[in-house]
């Protein structure tokens, strides 16, 4: 029994996947044509190898022993004188032929597996992109809310945060069209163009903004104010061409009674 010493020169011996693997090794080692399998020789070598494995305390799997039995059976069969009648009857089941066929077939798959081993393996020879979570910024937006939700959010925000008067629905009739024109012209005194948006933002109530906007359209039509837009993308600005005190408001539409 050998003891394992790391410094000792190592004994190298092939590892076999099974009895067929061992047989193929012996056939190749001894330069034997598998079709011309010398049963007596191969049986002797096979058993010798099992002895070696045993002497090294390597466990011998059951499959190896089954094959040993098969080989011994074949060998004894060959030693017997051949009876032509029995031979023809048993031809289909000739165990030796069957063994040869198994060996050749096993060799085919061994070779195929060697070719597979030479291919570029993923993770050994070639690599792909690691799976990555999609950047949330690149993921599509869920269509779980519509423009009405947007509107509700808008008003909710205004009511929650606006420092000025909250957006209320105010009756249109409470406001004077003329008063709105006067307010607009006062805002625009000085002649400098003012962004339309900024004017409208000064107005708290939505209805009042409607009225103011209508007033602006009216005095622009009358030539008291001009709307400017510097470029295609620029905001609209409003400028007055008359001073608020000098404006002639007599031609403004009459206000309807309450």
């Amino acid at each position, binding site marked *: 029994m050998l003891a394992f010493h790391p410094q000792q020169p190592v004994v190298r011996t092939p590892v076999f996947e099974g009895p067929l693997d061992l047989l193929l090794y012996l056939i190749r080692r001894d330069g034997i044509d598998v079709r011309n399998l010398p049963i*007596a020789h191969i049986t002797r070598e096979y058993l010798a190898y099992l002895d070696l494995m045993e002497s090294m305390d390597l466990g011998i799997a059951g499959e190896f022993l089954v094959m040993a039995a098969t080989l011994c059976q074949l060998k004894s069969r060959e030693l017997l004188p051949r009876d032509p009648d029995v031979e023809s009857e048993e031809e289909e089941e000739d165990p030796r032929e069957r063994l040869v066929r198994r060996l050749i077939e096993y060799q085919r798959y061994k070779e*195929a597996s060697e070719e597979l081993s030479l291919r*570029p393996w*993923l993770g050994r020879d070639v*690599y792909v*992109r690691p799976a990555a979570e999609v950047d949330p910024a690149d993921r599509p937006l869920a269509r779980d809310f519509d423009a009405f939700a947007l509107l509700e959010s808008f008003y909710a925000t205004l009511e929650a945060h606006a420092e000025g008067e909250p957006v209320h629905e105010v009756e249109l009739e409470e406001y004077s069209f003329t008063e709105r024109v006067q307010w607009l012209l006062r805002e625009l005194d000085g002649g400098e163009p003012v962004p339309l948006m900024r004017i*409208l933002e000064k107005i708290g109530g939505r209805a009042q903004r409607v009225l103011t906007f209508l007033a602006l359209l009216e005095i622009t039509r009358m030539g008291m104010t001009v709307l400017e837009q510097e470029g295609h993308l620029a905001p609209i600005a409003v400028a007055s061409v008359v001073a608020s005190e000098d404006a002639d408001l007599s031609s403004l539409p009459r206000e309807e009674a309450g």
Partner: protein
Amino acid sequence: MSDEVDNLIVLPGVSVTLAEEPTDEVEEIDGLAPPDPEFLLAAVEAVLFGSDQPLSTDAVRVALNVELEGAVESALEMLRADYQERGAGIELVEVGGGWQMRTVQRAAPYVARALGAKPVRLSRPAVETLAIVAYRQPVTRSEVEDLRGVECGGVLRSLVSRGLVGTVGRTDDPGRPLLYGTTAGFLSFFGLGDLSDLPTLRDLREMQSDDPAEGPVPLPED
């Protein structure tokens, strides 16, 4: 009238914005506009880069919303040729019925080192079993064991758990044993386009003549 006013008031900048955005853009974006022809190659490249799985020509076509399949196919071929010509570190390969970007084999040791990952291993029994399943599929465990001459249950299980082999049904034999076959992961792992890309068995012709149906192998006497 009042409707208009409402909208105008709420949206002071409406005319500005409207002028800047053509309204017919809406349809295009809803159905995702296909890439401009000059961006097609780049879009194909990005889509393949972003996927860790092989993508079929059709999957690429759908992702890009390109109607014409030929356009995507020729873009894929151009991209593959482009990588080859400039000796890139990446190549475009057809595996498992799809296209995939992979590092070139020559770069493998550097990539492995950068990843700090040990190269993937398969034991010799595993590769042998895999070869038998690949060439004989669909195949039962006992058929594999007959061919290899050893018990294969554990090896088969580990191949299944690695996604290289899967069960594809059962035979009608007593006990209805499971049938095993290779998976798309198998093709991808070995860089095979499909099963017909498997190397042909070297002894195939010999084996065919060995087939008992064609007569017994003539054995010279000892």
